[in-house]
């Protein structure tokens, strides 16, 4: 037994889905496309029946990739042996639009239950629907009036579903009218649409009574929200709040997650004997798990705000306002929030591109999102700026160091827009597509919907991207912790014979040892082999190792450099800075000059130095093609731009 949930966009379909299934739901993708597929279990008359939520659609004839999912599902119904009941949700305030879709599904001969939802809002709009006469008009279909937000009508709905199931099992399995689904020609679809919409409107005339027009007053607020000046001011404020929250507020739980797992790691270190297992657990696996879990606060916060904006109805006003500004770059008004949140972290940003309806605009947004300077780049930027950029005032008010930091952010944004523009020229649009969006009435946000969204996003991230992140971080950890054992032994022996080592304290000795061990690890050898390739950018092998290890997360760059320079963490960043400033090549040239410093910063602006981003990009595009393209294109770009900078300065 299967239940399928259909309805127009903005008819409260997800609210109903959450009401019926509670937390018993699964999220995945529909086959072949990256459109959320939600399934859950509903308790009907003592048994659990699976319910699938289909994307909102106006018609069974698809006009977008989301609507295509519904069309494909309908086409497959005949092959299914399972009995099926369709639940069609319609917005009571826009009954004719809902009845249009309903009539298409009814003509396909699918057994249906009609749910007239959001009757509280239609009441407020002065609309009354006569339940009896509507039921009479649709004789074979049970009609249920609901307000899914508060759960009103839930029991009646469950009863109606139960009845419809009973009716069905008595008869033979229905077969979908394939003739109707076969209409591909637009003109034919139009003729069909004209007839259906006339019929739906006629039916509405019979059952709907309108009292008064109150629409004008409630739309006054829209005039302000989309005002040419005030509209942008309000949206900027909203963005600043979101950005601040994802950026700052998330730091607190992130610290707790890191400390908590560190504590676990210490416990394991104490209880397990020293050796390979302990190393793997404490060095590879637990930091890897930390690397996954640490993103949860940012994901939760961003999707809290997005769901809040979406559920209340504000988001569509913002999209309306922003669309014109990002359109020249092949993006959509919907791209703005994902791009901006990528400046805190690209992970939730890329996940948020799922809301962009047009597949080409979505791909472009997702593709350029990693160029937004995220918070993990800040430790790298600030360390390098403090090493190579002098503390100088410009024009009496501006700090040169601050200006450079700003320039790095601006560089990322400008190049992102340029690449987006290029992609717009070269990417083909699959099929016809149109920007058409409903601007729904404002509603108070529904907390269950919001928290379900957050929960789903976290689950998807941990389950579908977490594994890849964990596996790759263990690989990088292994590469930096193991090496040819003879060579490592020799290097340690040599270190111990040096005077510098003999006069050092016990603590310093350990630091020197780990520096030597990292140098002679596989990653270290890799860095050294790479040196000729990165020398033209102004980097030595130590920087090469730091870049390699920072694939885990960009901020690891700083940590690796402090290991390589046998630097006391307790001594703070100041002394690391001094060490880097004084670092020289054998011939006496300084390693960190203005040229190599800027080259390195520019490298970090462009390079996709983040395996979590790759994993999420794979999950959101459904294959490795796009993430590998991003990795190589941004790698080449980083190399080229850094080379240019090093040669220029």
């Amino acid at each position, binding site marked *: 037994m299967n239940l399928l949930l259909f309805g127009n966009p903005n008819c409260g379909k997800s609210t109903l889905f959450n009401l019926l299934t509670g937390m018993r739901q699964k999220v995945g993708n529909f086959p072949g496309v990256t459109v959320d597929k939600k399934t859950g279990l509903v308790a009907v008359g003592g048994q659990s029946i699976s319910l699938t939520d289909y994307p909102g659609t106006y018609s069974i*004839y698809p006009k977008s990739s989301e609507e295509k999912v519904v069309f494909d599902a309908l086409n497959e119904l005949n092959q299914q042996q399972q009995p099926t009941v369709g639940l069609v949700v319609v917005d009571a305030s826009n009954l004719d639009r809902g009845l249009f879709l309903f009539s298409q599904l009814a003509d396909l001969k699918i057994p249906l239950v009609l749910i007239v939802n959001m009757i509280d809002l239609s009441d407020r709009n002065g609309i009354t629907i006569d339940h009896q006469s509507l039921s009479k008009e649709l004789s074979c279909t049970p009609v249920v009036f609901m307000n899914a937000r508060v759960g009103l009508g839930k029991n009646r709905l469950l009863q109606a579903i139960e009845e419809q199931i009973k009716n069905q099992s008595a008869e033979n399995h229905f077969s979908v009218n394939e003739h109707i689904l076969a209409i591909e020609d637009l003109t034919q679809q139009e003729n069909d649409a004209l007839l259906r919409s006339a019929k739906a*409107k006629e039916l509405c005339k019979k059952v709907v009574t309108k009292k008064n027009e109150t629409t004008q007053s409630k739309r006054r607020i829209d005039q302000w929200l989309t005002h040419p000046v005030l509209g942008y001011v309000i949206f900027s404020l909203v963005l600043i709040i979101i950005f601040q929250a994802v950026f700052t507020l998330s730091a607190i739980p992130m610290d707790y997650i890191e400390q908590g797992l560190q504590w676990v790691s210490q416990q394991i270190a104490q209880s397990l004997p020293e050796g390979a297992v302990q190393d793997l657990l404490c060095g590879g696996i637990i930091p890897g798990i930390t690397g996954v879990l640490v993103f949860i606060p940012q994901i939760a916060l961003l999707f809290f705000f997005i769901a809040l904006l979406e559920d209340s109805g504000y988001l569509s006003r913002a999209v309306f306002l922003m*669309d014109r500004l990002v359109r020249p770059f092949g993006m959509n*008004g919907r791209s703005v929030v994902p791009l901006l949140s990528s400046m805190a972290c690209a992970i939730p940003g890329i996940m948020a591109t799922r809301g962009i309806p047009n597949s080409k605009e979505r791909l472009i947004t997702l593709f350029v999102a990693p160029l937004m300077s995220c918070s993990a780049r800040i430790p790298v930027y600030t360390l390098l700026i403090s090493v190579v950029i002098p503390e100088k005032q410009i024009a009496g008010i501006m700090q040169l160091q601050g200006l450079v930091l700003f320039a790095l952010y601006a560089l990322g944004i400008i190049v992102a827009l340029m690449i987006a523009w290029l992609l717009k020229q070269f990417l083909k649009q699959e099929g016809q597509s149109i*920007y*058409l*969006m409903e601007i729904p*009435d404002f509603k108070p946000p529904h907390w269950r919907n919001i928290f379900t969204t957050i929960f789903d996003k976290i689950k998807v991230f941990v389950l579908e991207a977490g594994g890849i992140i964990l596996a790759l971080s263990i690989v990088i950890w292994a590469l930096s912790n193991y090496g040819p054992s003879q060579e490592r032994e020799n290097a340690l022996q040599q270190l111990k014979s040096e005077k510098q080592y003999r006069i050092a304290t016990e603590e310093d000795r350990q630091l020197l040892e780990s520096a030597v061990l990292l140098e002679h690890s596989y990653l270290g050898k890799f860095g050294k082999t790479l040196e000729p390739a990165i020398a033209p950018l102004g980097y030595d092998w130590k920087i090469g190792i730091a870049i390699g290890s920072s694939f885990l997360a960009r901020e690891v760059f700083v940590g690796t450099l402090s290991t390589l320079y046998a630097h006391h963490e307790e001594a703070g960043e100041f002394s690391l800075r001094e060490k880097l400033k004084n670092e020289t090549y054998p011939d006496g040239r300084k390693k960190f000059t203005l040229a190599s410093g800027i080259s390195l910063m520019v490298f970090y602006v462009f390079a996709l130095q983040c395996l979590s981003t790759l994993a999420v990009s794979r999950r959101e595009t459904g294959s490795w093609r796009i993430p590998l393209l991003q990795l190589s294109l941004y790698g080449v770009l980083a190399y080229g731009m850094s080379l240019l900078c090093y040669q220029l300065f």
Partner: protein
Amino acid sequence: MNLSEIPKQRSVKILEITQPFLRTKLMEMGVVPGVEITLTLKAPFRGPIAFAYGNTQISIRFEDAAFIKVNPLAS
């Protein structure tokens, strides 16, 4: 006249939609020639426009609005 030329708060009657894809899509939403709509919102710099039909507002891009031929109603 085109819908893109109509000022805000003006009600119009749709005569014809000249772009087939847009026409079919709007028809499926009940916006067929003959219905009356009110232009409610216009984004700056020739950004999207929105019109009220029934109890919702529908927004489309400025360029697409030019495909919708309308007859202004006396205000």
